């Protein structure tokens, strides 16, 4: 069963390489607003939606702290648990700023490995991203349709 899927195909190969090298259990590539471009390891749409929303929220609140400190936006965050860690990184591409949420097991990976290969992922995404296109205004109905289509792609058997 293929565990890695992408709504936007250019993300797929860099993501697959990252997951293999970093030993990530779960990964999401998304926009800062929580729109998911690709995922690895998730088996339920409800988990993807929740993780994307929470991840985007964490990054947004951390950006606010950075602003209060007169600091430019943080590029990476790491939360270390006993058995798992969560890493959130940001990178800039022609498609815009992207966030990458990674869940890794402490036994088979580490924040050092994830950071190391995240740097390579950021370079690969920047190189693979298509040129920015005119973005039409997003209507509520369009958003819901796009979300449902994305979820269908991310969980296609």
């Amino acid at each position: 069963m293929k565990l890695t899927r992408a709504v936007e195909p250019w993300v797929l190969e860099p993501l697959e390489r990252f997951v293999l090298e970093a030993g990530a259990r779960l990964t999401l590539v998304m926009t800062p607003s929580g729109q998911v471009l690709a995922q690895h390891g998730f088996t339920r749409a409800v988990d993807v939606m929740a993780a994307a929303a929470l991840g985007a929220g964490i990054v947004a609140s951390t950006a606010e702290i950075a602003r209060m400190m007169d600091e430019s936006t943080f590029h990476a965050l790491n939360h270390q648990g006993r058995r798992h860690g969560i890493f959130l990184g940001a990178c800039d591409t022609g498609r815009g700023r992207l966030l990458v949420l990674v869940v890794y097991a402490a036994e088979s990976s580490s924040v050092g490995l994830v950071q190391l290969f995240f740097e390579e992922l950021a370079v690969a995404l920047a190189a693979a991203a298509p040129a920015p296109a005119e973005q039409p205004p997003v209507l509520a109905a369009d958003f819901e349709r796009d979300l449902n289509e994305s979820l269908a792609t991310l969980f296609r058997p």
Partner: protein
Amino acid sequence: MADEVKRLTAELARNPGSLVFLALGETLRARGQLDAAARIALTGLERHPHLADAHDLYARVLADAGDVEQARDEWGMALRFDPKHIGALKGLGFVHFHAGDFDQALEHLETALAADPLDQTVVQALQTVRAAAEIAEAEAAAAAAETEDAVEGIADVFAGLEGARQGLLLVDLRGRLLGGGMRDGTDRDVAEPVAAYLAGASQEAERTARLLELGTWSWIVAEGTEGSMHVSQPSDATLLLVRRDRSVPSGRLAVFAEHATAVARAWLEEQQG
């Protein structure tokens, strides 16, 4: 029963946030309508993510569909919300029983029995698991008698070499044994766990050497407090492990390992005809 489905569906439509989805999901599952049952269970889980009964329902649907791994995860989730949930305990008992882990199966079923001593399905399940465990123990004793012959065959790769059965191991890149054997200081057979942990070691060594611009990796030595291990790659698809205790100096270990690598290469070439 079709009327029952209609009735429950209508009730759920009137009150989508109610728990009637549990009864509807179970009814659909019992009728074998697993896709519909799964959709009902997942929709219910979106509204009631902390309800143990909902996770139990989804787990039963997954188990019926053959996805035992995911069913186990869902029952595990149910127990996190309700550690005495009978359905989840029975479910995990079933999962472990079918995986051959009778100890774990018994542990879950005994917990279920303690939570509800009158549940006859649990009593019956316990009897079944205990009987199966006794048969398995008898079979294991018989199999142990054949193990020596099996070891004899696997050790042939390094026949005549010092430590052929306890300090030399040839494995493929997936951790499967090809030849030799390995025992620890207490004479315990550790070939399989060592092989399993070293599966992927060559890729890790290759990656390390490549990314740090060290060239092509040749070998790795790991020295522990009780002994040393030398790991090399006789071919692209195999790993050779040589284990020695602390009394063997590292230089001598390296010389011996080189010789063992040559023996392994010759054997591999023979196998390829």
